[in-house]
């Protein structure tokens, strides 16, 4: 092979490689890699039922029922809702309407939790501003 041909082969390989990597990369990001599953994912059969997994969603208003360390509440993504049973200490942020990520397994349509983590969003503001925003939305 001449030098020129060599270079052509190299360029062709490079173009092929870059486009292949780009294609695979795009496909990879289009598929979802989940740290936690939403209730809708669970209903759609995307979560590993029978094994411990993480469920993420919002705590439903007026669904929290406490008895000492025992807590029952519901988690929703505003489409599907699951009841959750947990025994243990809850994080400070846990309250109705808050985002949570729960580790546990699904038994008879109830989620038996071994760990409850609270997820907060990226917004920071004083309570007065939050109230004002809330009122404006209503």
């Amino acid at each position, binding site marked *: 092979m001449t030098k020129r041909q060599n270079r052509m082969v190299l360029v062709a*390989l*490079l173009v092929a*490689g*870059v486009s*292949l*990597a780009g294609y*695979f*990369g795009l*496909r*990879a990001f289009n*598929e*979802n*890699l989940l740290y936690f599953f939403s209730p809708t994912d669970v209903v759609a059969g*995307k*979560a*590993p*039922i*029978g*094994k411990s997994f993480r469920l993420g969603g919002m705590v439903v208003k007026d669904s929290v029922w406490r008895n000492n360390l025992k807590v029952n509440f519901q988690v929703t993504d505003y489409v599907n809702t699951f009841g959750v049973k947990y025994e243990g200490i809850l994080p400070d942020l846990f309250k109705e309407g808050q985002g949570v990520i729960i580790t546990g397994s699904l038994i008879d349509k109830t989620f038996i939790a071994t760990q409850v983590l609270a997820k907060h969003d990226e917004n920071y503001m004083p309570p007065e501003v939050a109230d004002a925003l809330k009122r404006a939305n209503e």
Partner: protein
Amino acid sequence: MNIYTQTLKRDLRIAIRNRTSILNPLSFFVISVSLFPLAISPEASILSQIAAGIIWVISMLAVLLSLNVLFHHDFENGVLEQMVISHHSLPLLILAKVSAHWILTGIPIIILSPLLGLFLFLDSEGIQILILTLLLSTPSLSLIGAIGASLIVGIKNSGMLLSLLILPLYIPILIFASSAVSQAQFGLEISAQLYFLATILVVSLMTTPFISSLALKISLE
């Protein structure tokens, strides 16, 4: 291309004449994996959940151990220096050596993995995906590892150093590969993980021979 096959054949021939260098990483692989049932629990339900992770971690370590000598002999007898100053393309020569390394460690690991999967009570679905992820990513392990091997070629007692350099770069492969297997055991979608592994493979095929050749030139200065 000719020089590629010549180098590949040469490396394979050397390895065949010196069989322990092939067998050691494999024995390490089998022995280390069989420690886990003894240490953790022989119970099938526990082992089948962590089987993919164990086999993947030990594969990485086995590849790492064998990488230590990837350039070592050639360095000691001066062949490596000849390669660097020869008129042949150094990345191509490195690619040939890495291919030989993969044939000698990657392929045997892939062949042994179903057996070890059975040891750890991995179901047939899990074993299939385990083989698939190993096929897709052991070449990446050899390619990325070659960078580390060429950076440390002149340093004595560099085994620990090589793991420090290379293991952080292996972490994404470990995450995607083992999550693919454990997801597959529950009949879940795993195409995202496989695409990530494929991306890593293509990118490392394209870049690592050049980075390794730069690193070799630096080490041999």
